[in-house]
């Protein structure tokens, strides 16, 4: 992510990350910096090998201070001197959960989404499930174009009618049947083979709750899964 043309390459800027002052390379995206410091935030439409697309909005973080804060998609956002970032504020967590709720309602069969729901402590899905098989993250399109250099698939339609297809909806000669699109798809993958819940949400694997976030406005640490501060040892398996 080329940014901050004023800063020569190699020079670092200082940012405030969850209250700590850290160094950051202004040529990195905010997500890259956050991940570099070991903070885990959910991403879905992002892949290290592909151009950021910024559409799932799960990677949102809160920037700014006082009452002038806003949410931004960190995978697309540049880094600059003095940037104040909070990766787990109440507002961020609430937003991520609702977005994930929308996504799971669209594709309840995705293991990736179910795992993420467990990690994010999503407790209910308030929408009718649609049992669709695509969340339009566009990973396959970028994979096909950027890594396989085939450009065999793309988006068609608009709004809720948007879908992934080949040019003119016809069998494409560009497609070499390499399967890269299926490899990268977060939905095509099989649902886990463990006990199947009959609810939209599975949440079988992990279930803990960062109660510090509601109390302090921010989560206070970044253990995944969240552990012992609040819950008794008997709750942590």
């Amino acid at each position, binding site marked *: 992510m080329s940014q901050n043309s004023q800063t020569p390459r190699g020079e670092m800027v200082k940012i405030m990350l969850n209250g700590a002052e850290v160094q950051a390379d202004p040529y990195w995206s905010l997500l890259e910096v956050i991940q570099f410091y070991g903070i885990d935030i959910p991403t879905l439409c992002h892949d290290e090998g592909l151009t950021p697309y910024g559409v799932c*909005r799960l990677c949102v973080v809160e920037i700014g201070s006082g009452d002038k804060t806003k949410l931004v998609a960190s995978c697309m956002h540049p880094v600059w001197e003095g940037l104040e970032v909070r990766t787990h504020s109440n507002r961020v967590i609430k937003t991520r959960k609702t977005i994930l709720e929308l996504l799971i309602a669209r594709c309840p069969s995705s293991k990736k989404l179910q795992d993420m729901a467990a990690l994010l402590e999503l407790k209910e899905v308030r929408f009718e499930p649609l049992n669709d098989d695509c969340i*339009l993250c566009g990973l396959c399109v970028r994979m096909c174009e950027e890594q396989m250099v085939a450009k065999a698939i793309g988006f068609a339609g608009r709004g809720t009618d*948007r879908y992934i297809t080949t040019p003119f909806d016809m069998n494409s000669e560009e497609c070499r049947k390499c399967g890269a699109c299926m490899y990268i798809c977060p939905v095509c993958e099989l649902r886990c083979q463990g006990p199947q819940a009959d609810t939209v949400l599975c949440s079988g694997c992990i279930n803990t709750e960062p109660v510090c976030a509601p109390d302090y406005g921010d989560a206070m640490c970044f253990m995944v899964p969240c552990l012992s501060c609040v819950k008794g040892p008997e709750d942590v398996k």
Partner: protein
Amino acid sequence: MKVTSVNELEAIRSEILAGKDQDKPCIAVCGGPGCLANQCLEVRDAFVNEIAAKGLTDKVDVRTTGCHGFCECGPIALIYPQEIFYQGLSIDDIPEIIEETIINNKTVDRLLYTDDEAGQLVETEGEVPFYKQQMRLILGNNSKIDPHSIEDYIAIGGYSALAKVLGGMQPMDVVDEIKNSGIRGRGGGGFPTGRKWESTRNAEGDIKYVICNADEGDPGAFMDRSILEGNPHSVLEGMIIGAYAIGSNEGYVYVRNEYPLALKNINLAIKQAREAGLLGDNILGSGFNFDLKVNRGGGAFVCGESTALMASLEGKPGEPRAKYIHTSDKGLWDRPSNLNNVETWANIPLIINNGADWYSAIGTESSKGTKVFSLVGKINNTGLVEVPMGMTLREIIFDIGGGIPDNKAFKAVQTGGPSGGCIPESLIDLPVDYDRLTEVGSMMGSGGMIVMDEDTCMVDVARYFINFLMEESCGKCVPCREGLLRMGEILTDITEGRGRMEDLDLIQDLSEVLRDASLCGLGQTAPNPVMSTLKYFRNEYEAHIKDHKCPAGVCTELITYSIDAGNCTGCGLCLKKCPAEAITGETKQPHVLDAGKCIKCGICYDVCKFDAVRKE
């Protein structure tokens, strides 16, 4: 005509003016969108033919102009030099106008406008209440010029601002003048125009672009169309000045594809300006080069969003992208680009000619100048109005707009286009400026104003706009695509009697996510219609959910019709008209309506002359 210097422009202007007889009668027929729909071109032809028949062709001019604003009364014609205002014209009226007004210098009273309040006829445009309280700095010129004539534009002082700029102002002086004027963008966001120019000017890069946004996709809005159709040179002049200030030599006008006349007029204006040496190389002998291309819009509402517009100009799908790096740094083809709205550009020559101090004296603390609004919905005087910022909603809706038809009560006004909020009666004295509208949960947007009366169901209104936005969403980002879909589902459930009180919290959650996490302005502002109606008309939502009633009697699933035996005279009209055979009864005996058979078409309610059909 080729103008090679600033002085020559003034000489040409004097020449044009000297050649014009100010007392020569001229009939300006409005050719705006509203009048066009009312056969104004036939009226114009009738004028031309009648004048020829009377042998007056050399003595009377006829011109077809851009929108005069008072669409409600169309077709309209203004008779210069007296500025007599004739309205509601048909071709049969034309011989009388020529005979009486042009030849005998008398008015045709039946075609004049009646000021109902004062109970008298008014002769000139300026006396019509609709116009009297407006400040038509931008639109006022529409009736004075033929949009196909660059001479007409020059005659009313056109291109003098450009001459002033190229004749001695440094680019930075121009930027400062615009900054000091306090003008903010008229296309939606209300960003200070001078600051945008400055950022683009200061951005790194040899090639910079200036772009005019004429995509105008809001349903019911036609202010940009009317400027581009009626006075295209004013937009060009603004753009050339902007390009000089910013340091750009290339520009684009992105015009909505459904506006063929606007496309034609701007293309013609560009051709004329090029021939006159006002566009192209070495403009007015100053050494400054600038040229413009016209592009047709991509056909979607979202193409008006700045990054989607630029993608569309590049030949890509018109989808927005993240704007964390501003388009003033990296816009069209990743080069610094300055996008402004049609009306913003049209304001520039005014500011340069009259000075920033003059301009900033109009309006409020935070919003300067005038704003054009399209006044539609349940309002007597439909049309385009231009008023100084800070005028109250009451003045616009009642004094200029003439209030609500059929003596109904005013309920709310939605400002700012489909993603604006609904402002209730209690806030009718709100001064209209950018910040005040935002404070109450709406926005200036591009200047749409939809007036609603007591018969409007606010839940239904919210549902309507959410569905519009859902269909116009590009579908790229999750909050907007999935969120609007779900919001639409919930609102439909409520209007059809399946709503639950928890749904109101869910709508609230979804609204916050849309506002906070959507990629572009469409999703970010989409919750406004819902949030504002929920805030000001929560009782209506609750009535739908708890009592299964639609207080305004709009949501068909929630209304029942019945016959009030006390009022029913047994005339039998409803019985005859009911398509579902749901009404029975003997003549002169009270009739009975079978709710089980009723399909809720409302015909009985409409036909009953005795107020005996009840709608609840």
